């Protein structure tokens, strides 16, 4: 088993690279998200689309060469469960989208924006944590399937 410290250092380094790219490509910008939802530029679609293609090719290569994880474990992303009306995905997704459209930032960019100096996004982060907490409290009563 690789140690906790090594896991933390690697995660921190990868997060740093991710946050850096998010800011440098302007993907964290409210203006870019508006541009995306107004279908006025290919920029965000190009970022997400090419990220998906590179991710897909990487997963294929990992399977093809049976690449192992840090502890020698087989690497497979277990697909999320589907079934019934898939309510959690479309309804939860739509609620997320409603927030994304006005705030102009999803979770990764919220962290990156705080780091970039837009400290008011601490309020958005606090509200998002309240949202997550309330979901945890209401979970039994919400439709998922």
């Amino acid at each position, binding site marked *: 088993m690789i140690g906790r410290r090594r896991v*933390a250092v690697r*995660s921190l380094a990868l*997060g*740093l*690279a*991710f946050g850096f*790219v*998010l800011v440098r490509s*302007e*993907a964290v*910008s*409210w203006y870019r998200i*508006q*541009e995306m*939802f*107004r279908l*006025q530029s290919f920029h965000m679609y190009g970022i*997400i689309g090419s990220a*998906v293609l*590179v*991710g*897909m090719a*990487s997963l294929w290569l*990992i399977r093809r060469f049976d690449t192992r*994880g*840090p502890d020698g*474990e087989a690497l497979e*992303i277990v697909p999320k469960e589907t079934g019934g009306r*898939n309510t959690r*995905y479309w309804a*939860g*997704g*739509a*609620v*997320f989208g409603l*927030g*994304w*459209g006005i705030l102009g930032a*999803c*979770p990764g960019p*919220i*962290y*990156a*924006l705080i*780091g*970039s100096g837009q400290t*008011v*996004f601490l*309020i*958005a*982060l606090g*509200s*998002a*944590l309240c*949202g*997550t*907490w309330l*979901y*945890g409290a209401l*979970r039994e009563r919400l439709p998922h399937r």
Partner: protein
Amino acid sequence: MTAAVDLLSRPWPWYVAGPLIGLVVPALLVWVGRPFGISSSFRDVCAATIPGKLEYFGYDWKEHAWRLAFSAGVLAGGFLAWQVLGPADPGGLAVAVSEATRSDLLALGITDQTGLVPRQLLSWEALGSVPGLFVLVIGGFLVGFGTRWADGCTSGHAITGLANLQLASLIAVIGFFAGGLISTHWLLPILLAGLP
């Protein structure tokens, strides 16, 4: 050298940024052994601070400490990209969005289009106005609630999930877009009418 300066003074094009973001998926899997996803860190923070007696938060968040480390990294990356290496276009219109977007936003009352985000809407001063308060507080809340209900956000569903050809993620991403379109074209114009 010019290329290096260009890389720091201009916004990165999608064909540089997108593939780099895509590489986070295999990098996290191979080096850390975990699938890429950011929003579960919200759950970890709740579990670590105010779990109450809720089953959803009743797990050992320390087992997932990598997610908090990754989130801290994203924050540090934002700091390095903007505070240390400076804005892409100091003193100018910081974000290179299209003219069409600029004029649409101008028509909605976003007259100051400098900065990474519009300060009329997203700043400590704007928090004192109805649109600013709504966008930050309700917008953030919906993001945090929705992402946990949908079991993933842009990274977990739109990037990792689609790359893994998951039906659940395709449905979630369609939901993300439907919600975003409604917000942009219907909710936002109503809100921005209240700009001071």
